């Protein structure tokens, strides 16, 4: 793990990159990284995030600045700007059931080619996908999902990069921290090694490539 400034970290991300962003309706989202992505105008992003948050909050800022060209998400109903951009064909949107979304990312981070899920069988979601029977029950083959970058937010990070999360801000962060080539983390608190007890580390330090310095 290397500690870097938010400007240095975002400068590494090229325009058009695929980026996973943690958070659920803007809760548990690395806001400082997103502010800097907007400031450096990283256009044409392929965004993988549970939702589109709301205008002005979380990944909502990326839609305010029209930086997204592709979106993989489960729900964008609370961001009218994302909806408008989808209906105007400015962004290509792939809507995925939430349990499938997280399992595809988990598979991507765990070396699996995909998962078999009953969710979506017999619905629009099944279109174009392989259906596989296991013990007589139908499942959809959902393929793994990875990104070039994961932008993750934690409650605690120690000097080595071990991470712990707070309450409902954990959500997709630990799963995404497994599923990207480069993992960049912001934390509310950066603390000495040992403050997070081994049993309480959720994301082990070797998964973190860059930790954004505080202050």
């Amino acid at each position, binding site marked *: 793990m290397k500690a870097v400034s938010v400007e240095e970290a975002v400068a590494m991300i090229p325009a058009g990159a695929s980026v996973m962003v943690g958070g*659920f309706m803007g809760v548990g989202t690395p806001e400082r990284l997103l502010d800097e992505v907007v400031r450096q105008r990283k256009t044409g992003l392929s965004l993988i995030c549970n939702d589109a948050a709301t205008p002005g909050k979380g990944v909502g800022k990326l839609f305010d600045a029209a930086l997204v060209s592709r979106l993989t998400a489960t729900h964008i*109903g609370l961001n009218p700007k994302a909806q408008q951009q989808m209906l105007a064909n400015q962004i290509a949107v792939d809507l995925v059931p939430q349990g499938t979304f997280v399992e595809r990312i988990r598979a991507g981070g765990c070396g699996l080619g995909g998962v078999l*899920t009953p969710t979506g*069988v017999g*619905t629009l*979601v099944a279109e174009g996908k392989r259906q596989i029977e296991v013990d007589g029950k139908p499942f959809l083959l959902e393929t793994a999902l990875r990104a070039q970058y994961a932008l993750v937010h934690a409650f605690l990070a120690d000097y080595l990069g071990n991470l712990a999360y*707070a309450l409902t801000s954990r959500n997709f962060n*630990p799963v995404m921290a497994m599923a990207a080539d480069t993992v960049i983390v912001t934390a509310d608190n950066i603390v000495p090694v040992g403050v997070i007890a081994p049993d309480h580390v959720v994301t082990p330090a070797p998964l973190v490539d860059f930790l954004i310095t505080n202050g």
Partner: protein
Amino acid sequence: MDAQTIIARRVAKELRNGDLVNLGIGIPTLVANYVPSDLKVFFQSENGLIGTGPIPEQGMAHPTLTDAGGRPISALPGASTFDSAMSFGLIRGGHVDVTVLGGLQIDAHGHLANWMIPGKMVPGMGGAMDLVSGAKRVIVAMQHAAKGKSKIVAKCTLPLTSARPVSLVVTDMAVIGFPDGKATLLETAPGVSIGEVMAVTEAELTVPDSVPEMKI
């Protein structure tokens, strides 16, 4: 009693001691208000919490303690938090005893459509498809009709949420179940006749010899 209160009160009667319950947005959220205080029910919020409590008092909200809509909530003693893979493992894996969801249409066999209106409303399915596919019991809480048009239809014209039928539908007029895959009138709301229910139900409805009134 207004329509939403009738529905929420009746759905609350379906919950059992120790149940793990996931409530959708809208009318389903109101169900929590009518759970008897002597019943220990665990409510899950799919953004990663079991043991959701009421909206916190003024000034006591925390930005990392929210419901699936991003609104502040509280956590009850004994609550637990987890990531989204665990949350949907609980849902899809059959660990959630009851989910209560809103509906746009239910067909005569219990198939639910509740996530999109093509060309008009395409918000995404969020967790709805996983909940209907995986929860042990799926209860739909919705108004019986919208603008005079039955929401209980012969065949859904809107895209289905799941191929798996729901367990029970509770409306402001009736409780409908699906024994043998056929929509069956189980109860009527107070002051509502069987004839009135039939008049606003498009789907073919089996009516048993005895149809009790909802006890709410």
